[in-house]
């Protein structure tokens, strides 16, 4: 079991590392870059929303802040196109953090549905600011980013692909660490019963805010990378509410609160979006399919793909022979009947 897991993990890593070599088609690589960007964002989002249960529909605000941060830094510091702008990404993440600390502190005073609404409201406030703070953002005329003139043709996607992959691996490492740490256990306890967790010494306020801010950091980096990739940014696209919906949908499809679920969700839904856009011949029509998919997921796979697969796997294992877990037969059966959502993350 453990060996198989390692083999699958290495194979996936090798595939990810060699993907642009195996598929040199620029159209395919463009989809791959977008997939990596979304996978990173969803993984980070899940480390906050999936673990703590606080569903944020406003983290795209930090995507937008990261986009503008990179654009403004490149403009003011006259950064040429090439590898240099990539070095600004951690800085873009930190700028997102500066915004996320007070915004998160306010938003996290509310819970559940109220929290969702507050995050949405904060997102639109940021979008309005991007439209109206013309001296900073250039308003609706948007901003241009430096163009890497030497990266012509098929090579253009390659640097973005590998930087995107590095960001994803970093996000996965952070998410894995949180899931296995004392800190992450505190977040899961908050998800299940926040007041009870407080009564057991979990400092819920700092715990929630830290996760909120970590997710914002990654959204800032991803936003900056995306801005550089598409070369120009405008308020409605840098601050795009669809990003929030996509991120949430990907996490729910793959498995909220699991480690691999968000990546799986992105790998399925980003290419699907591109495909539908081409298929319908008009952008935006895929949203109807997405709406239908969202309903289907909630009805058929309320826990997402990974937990559903895990439950099925464990059930068949239980039928096949003696239980791995030392407990007696009847108790093990009861355990397996559960959805296993709480023990997410351990699996690949």
């Amino acid at each position, binding site marked *: 079991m453990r060996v198989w897991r390692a083999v699958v993990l290495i194979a996936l890593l090798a595939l990810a590392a060699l993907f642009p070599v195996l598929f040199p088609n620029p159209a395919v690589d463009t989809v791959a870059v977008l997939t990596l960007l979304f996978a990173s964002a969803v993984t980070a989002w899940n480390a906050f929303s999936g673990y703590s249960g606080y569903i944020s529909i406003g983290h795209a605000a930090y995507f937008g802040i990261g986009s503008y941060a990179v654009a403004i830094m490149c403009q003011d510091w006259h950064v040429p196109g090439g590898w240099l702008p990539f070095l600004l990404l951690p800085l873009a993440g930190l700028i997102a953090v500066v915004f996320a600390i007070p915004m998160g502190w306010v938003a996290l005073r509310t819970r559940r549905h109220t929290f969702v609404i507050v995050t949405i409201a904060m997102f639109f406030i940021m979008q309005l600011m991007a439209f109206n703070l013309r001296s900073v953002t250039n308003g609706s005329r948007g901003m241009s980013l430096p163009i890497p003139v030497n990266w012509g043709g098929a090579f253009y996607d390659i640097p973005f692909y590998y930087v995107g992959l590095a960001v994803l691996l970093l996000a996965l490492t952070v998410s894995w660490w949180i899931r296995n740490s004392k*800190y992450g256990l505190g977040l899961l306890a908050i998800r299940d*019963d926040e*007041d009870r967790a407080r009564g057991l010494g979990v400092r819920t306020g700092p715990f929630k805010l830290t996760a909120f801010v970590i997710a914002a950091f990654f959204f800032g980096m991803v936003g900056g990378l995306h801005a550089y990739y598409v070369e120009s940014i405008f308020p409605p696209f840098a601050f795009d509410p669809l990003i929030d919906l996509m991120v949430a949908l990907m996490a729910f499809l793959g498995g909220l609160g699991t480690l691999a679920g968000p990546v799986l969700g992105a790998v399925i839904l980003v290419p699907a979006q591109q495909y539908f856009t081409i298929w319908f011949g008009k952008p935006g029509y895929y949203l109807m399919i997405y709406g239908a998919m969202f309903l289907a997921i909630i009805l058929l796979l309320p826990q997402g793909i990974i937990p559903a697969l895990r439950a099925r796997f464990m059930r068949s294992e239980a039928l096949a022979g003696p239980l791995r877990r030392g*407990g007696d037969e009847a*108790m093990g059966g009861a355990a397996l009947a*559960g959805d*296993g959502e709480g023990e997410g993350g351990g699996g690949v």
Partner: protein
Amino acid sequence: MSLLQATGVRKAFGGVVALEGCSISVEAGSLTGLIGPNGSGKTTLFNVMTGYESVDAGDVVFAGQRITNATPDRVFQLGIGRTFQLTRIFPRLTVLENMHVAAQRQGLAALFGRWSSSKEHARALELLDFVGLTKLSDVPARNLSYGQKKLLEFAYVLVAEPSVILLDEPAGGVNPTMIRYLTERIRALNERGVTFLMVEHNMEFVMGLCDRVVVMNHGVTIADGDPESVRSDPRVLEAYLGA
């Protein structure tokens, strides 16, 4: 010596006054029962003493330290553990993970470590053994029976080795065998020096276990003494029977 003390506590929810000048003193090493009719303010007093409710007036003192309006996490870290009337465990975590939530660590760096250190692990297993849940340690807590959940809540409160434990209706909805089992566990802990304050409607349980009983009615304590004298106190009879 009084270990946990509330003096002149007032707590009102809008126009409803739950506690009005309520005072209680819990002796170190005692098994104190807190009884009273429904709505007399017992749970509110628990909430005030454990930081879940702020007070309008009055003071709560624990081991010489003022803890009035302290936060629940702070109260727990100081050494007051509690269980809830409606048992509250973490349903999607396993029994063992539930145990680890309460394990306290000092310093920020400790949070970066894995959720179970070997020492904490051993302690968690020891306590699960103490309440008889060892076999279920990898089971999601939601799959436990009601009585098992009560035992789990009891066990994880013990993880941090609190000096006082407040039990809110530990025997409510639990079968007689489980009640006897719980009584034994409470006695064993008390012999090791743990102080208990418990709210309970099961008189047999309270009178058999506690060495001191405090009676509340309408937000104040009306009687206080050993089980025998409280049982025959006319004020208590009046409160319960409304005579």
